[in-house]
């Protein structure tokens, strides 16, 4: 268990599953025994506009919002939303761009959100069992298999990226 708070920002456009992805991470982190807080803005932003959701977990979390430049991980679902959210990332933070997991690796393109969670999971101390429970709890059964596959595809993509760089994730 990390000794400090882990900050993850999810970004994308309305309808892409930004909030769903952040819900799954929050649930998985909670199952792993962390204090978790999550904040998002929706409402008018639902209509295809920018959406972001902050998830913070660790031994004790205060503010549900991540201060600018303090995100350890930035997960972005839309190519147009990378640039304008980079300021949220720390210098040592890790970006998960939407093209990290190629379309060809996904049976259903709509599970990109869960695929990027798989990539993120490579860096987090949350067990497979907790991830699986969190994904199962938030998706209808008929979408479960395709999303669990996407999760694995995402993790494989991140493993390949880490091997290519010769670095390993932190936290």
């Amino acid at each position, binding site marked *: 268990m990390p000794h400090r708070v882990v900050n993850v920002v999810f970004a994308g456009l309305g309808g892409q599953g930004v909030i769903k992805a952040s819900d799954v991470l929050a649930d998985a982190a909670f199952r792993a025994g962390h204090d978790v807080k999550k904040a998002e803005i929706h409402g008018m*932003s639902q209509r295809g506009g920018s959406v972001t959701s902050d998830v913070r977990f660790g031994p004790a979390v205060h503010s549900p919002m991540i201060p600018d430049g303090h995100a350890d991980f930035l997960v972005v679902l839309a190519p147009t939303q990378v640039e304008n959210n980079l300021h949220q990332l720390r210098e040592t933070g890790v970006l998960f761009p939407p093209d990290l997991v190629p379309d060809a690796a996904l049976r259903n393109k709509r599970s990109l959100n869960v695929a990027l969670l798989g990539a993120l999971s490579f860096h987090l101390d949350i067990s497979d069992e907790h991830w699986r429970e969190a994904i199962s709890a938030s998706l209808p059964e008929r979408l479960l298999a395709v999303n669990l596959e996407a999760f694995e595809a995402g993790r494989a993509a991140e493993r390949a990226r880490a091997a290519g760089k010769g670095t390993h994730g932190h936290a």
Partner: protein
Amino acid sequence: MAALDGEVALGTGYPGTPSTEILEAFAALGGRAQWAPNEKVALEVGLGAAFAGARVLVTMKHVGVNVAADPLFTAAYTGVDGALVLVSADDPGMASSQNEQDNRRYAVAAGIPMLEPASSQEAYDFTVAALELSGRFHIPVILRMTTRVCHSKSVVVRRERPLPPAPPPRFVRDIRGRVMVPAFARPAHRKLREKLTAIQDWAETSTLNRVHAGSPALGIVVNGISFQHVREAAPEASVFQLGVVHPLPLEALRRFAAGVERCVVIEEGDPVVADALSAAGIRVEGKPEMYRFGELSVSRVRRILAGDVSPEPPPARQKPPELCEACPYHPVYGTLQRMGCIVAGDIGCYTLGVMEPYQAMDTCVAMGASVGVGLGLRHVLPEEQARKVVSIIGDSTFIHSGLNGLVEMVYNPPATGHVLIVLDNGTTAMTGQQEHPGTGRTLEHEATGHVSIEGMARAAGVQNVDVVDPVKDPKGFEELLSRRLAGNDLSVIVARRPCILAAADIRHYEKLNSEKAAAAAAPPCAACGSPDAA
């Protein structure tokens, strides 16, 4: 969940970000919740139930309290028998609202106690505390939330039987207490002030206000979500966390301020607490004016504490929302743009008609305002321009408060007549597809009485009432609109086509409800006389 555990008998409200999810969650957990046509009606229904001794939760967004303000101010005089908690969900920074009014002012103006939670756990605990406070002092209580408390999720511990069981509702006559003619209202106002004095004494020692001991060099007085920012920005500071925002525990705050070298008030929005403390002769620092605007955050709290008034970095570029690609309103706005109409708009998804490529909206002020504003424009503009004025309103907004404008239109018609377009997509789309009286389904999507929009228009006396499908026949819509604009009559055009996001759900609810109706119409079981469940 707190409403359920606190034995709330009825939840009512009108949808509005960021308050909408409360009643939906209450219903999903098994509570009795219903949407009202608007916030004023919701509060009145809640008040009646509370007169009868029930515990009630009434929910709305901050601007909804403006609509409910009329009964609210006098409900402070009448008080309640059971318990009445009004949730006001404020939206500092205007994530999804037309203004960022600070509803702490309402508590002061109406003389109603107000509690404000700083986390999901406190949202639970304070809802229970608000029910308890309302029941003990027989007064409505406002629970003020803000976007970041409403739209955050965190771990909540549920309490075992947090309140004594609610007694069954019953009617007890109390004419002097509830009929607010002047002779009874005068003593009622004095009684309210006595109650507030007693509540202030209670607030001085209430555990809802908490002092977090820290360094005597810096003391911070804070309410709501800003508390979380303060803990992170200044973990060393002594903190007075206000849970009771009105009436303020002035003596406890005076002692706190005297015990620290520097005392700063950190609050989002207006300087409500800072002004009140200064007026009471308590020496505190407020925030620079620039921090009145928008939400606070950890970094903004750091800046306030450092007295930093240098320009803030501009917010990151965001893609603005737009009408959904398959939204049925595209042809309507295309027509309005081509015809060069002056459009008095209203509040909902369709306000997005103001964006590119249409820019087909000229005003948007308040729920239902499109009708009155359009009529006002027609009354005074030169004829050539007056003929181009159209009011445009959504189905849920029309029922909410457009009906009043409809009556005005018939009663004081402009010389050139008027055209009101009701965009009926069969749902309250903006807030996440809630039902309303025009859909004929309840909050939980069960069949109920149905209010006909065109029926209301005809009954009010509008000469031309048409119902069209703007997607199926865009040309017909355009021709109809030109014809109506050319005449001097009053016209209502209902542009009906389900919201693309809601259409599948609507078909599903309709199927379920017609199956239920068929089952209910089946002959009763011969053996026991009860309807045949199979």
